[in-house]
């Protein structure tokens, strides 16, 4: 699920900590919604919604229908601005690689969204259907249910889901840190090459031996 480059939403951004839009962005989004609301009912019907998502994302028709189903909270065949805002936040979190942070910060609304039948629990089948919204792979989903289904009923209640979001944000932050350290190391190595003029292999061997000594 990707936003088309150059579309209007592509220029909006989420706050990295709270994963929300700023007031200015909300106002812009309000205007955008107003332009799309041709019937002046403060809502978008399924046709408009379909073409909107079709135009700005690479989602398939089946996925767009599923998203409409999950956002149509009142089953009226229309979605209001609040649902529209939620969808935009999900799209932008995907765009800005903030899926884990988004799920952590807004675990309750996300859980309610995935709880299609209102049973206060999320099944593996439903989660699998909508995993594309949060960029969760199949294998990750299996591990999720394996590790966090504490009650063993093959469903996730809210507490288990919240635990999962906490662990996933920690994991993503660690991955980010590791990437940064790797990058800094590689730049260091390049600098040393230029200064010392040693061969790459000998330098790497030296660094490895030093790290072993430290460990």
């Amino acid at each position: 699920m990707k936003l088309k480059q150059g579309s209007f939403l592509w220029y909006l951004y989420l706050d990295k900590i709270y994963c929300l839009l700023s007031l200015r962005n909300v106002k812009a989004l309000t205007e955008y919604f107003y332009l799309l609301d041709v019937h002046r009912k403060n809502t978008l019907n399924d046709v408009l919604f379909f073409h909107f998502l079709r135009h700005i994302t690479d989602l398939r028709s089946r996925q767009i229908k599923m998203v409409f189903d999950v956002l149509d909270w009142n089953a009226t065949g229309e979605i209001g601005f609040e649902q529209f805002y939620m969808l935009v936040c999900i799209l932008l979190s995907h765009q800005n690689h903030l899926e884990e942070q988004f799920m952590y910060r807004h675990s309750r609304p996300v859980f309610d969204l995935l709880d299609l039948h209102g049973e206060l629990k999320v099944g593996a089948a439903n989660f699998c259907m909508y995993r594309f919204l949060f960029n969760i792979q199949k294998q990750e989903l299996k591990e999720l249910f394996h590790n966090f289904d504490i009650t063993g009923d093959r469903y996730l209640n809210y507490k288990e889901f919240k635990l999962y979001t906490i662990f996933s944000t920690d994991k993503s932050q660690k991955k980010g840190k590791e990437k940064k350290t790797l990058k800094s190391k590689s730049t260091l190595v390049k600098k040393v090459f230029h200064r010392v003029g040693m061969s790459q292999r000998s330098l790497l061997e030296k660094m490895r031996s030093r790290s072993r000594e430290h460990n």
Partner: protein
Amino acid sequence: MEERPLKVRTLPGPLTRRPSRFTPGPIQAPGGTSHSAPAPCSSHQSVPQSPHRARLKVAIPACPFPRPLASLVVCGPQASSKSPPRRGSERPNLQPDIRNRWTMASMSQTQMDVPLSEVCDKYYEEVMVPDDRTRGRSSLKGHWKDDGESISLSDKVNFKREELELSSSVSLQNQVEVDDYSDLESSSSISVISISKYTPHRAYWAEQQNRLPLPLVELMENEALEILTKALKSELPFPDNFHTHTHTRKDPGGFYWTWACGNGVSGCVCPVRFP
């Protein structure tokens, strides 16, 4: 001026789930508040109303559609550590002024509990004019496009004055108390008055500095136009077994009739004339 941490609320979540054919939905808190949000309405109502805040109240039309109660889903502006050197006062004098909306939506920390529906409804109330879409859109355009065109001399003077005052070491509150703004009331827009009286937050000025670029408005409008054109030209994308909430038919008079059906229950008929 001390900066308190801005309250940030969570996203709106679905209050109730599908109709009765499904198992009972989630437990609702008394008063119908969403269990996903920590009772925003009650906390907002418990705040004692000051005379300044009372003036900000605007009659909000009742929403015809039942929507889950939602707390404000807006993050505080991403204020930089630098002091705001200038304030975007290049605003047209058209009504309603966009600065109205900024102040109405309120950057003060005590008013961050405004529900998103109120923000949206206020916007619609100001901009939407029945049977006259062009007027609404021209007012929209005026807010974003005419910034460089309709700056009056008084606005320029005021802008420079305010720039000097903001750059000084005097706090914003002291500036408000000074009577320098009293001369602006006669000629300037309502937003200047509201700014002078309602102690603007520093983060507000920081955000004002980084407004949306004007070409983005053009992009927004063009994109909306493309989407609506595609929607108009296309047939119904969904087969009959998919909700079939919206049907469109054209009558000999050129009107497109659109109606919504909710699983066998007839909905409203809404005639829309497409160009």
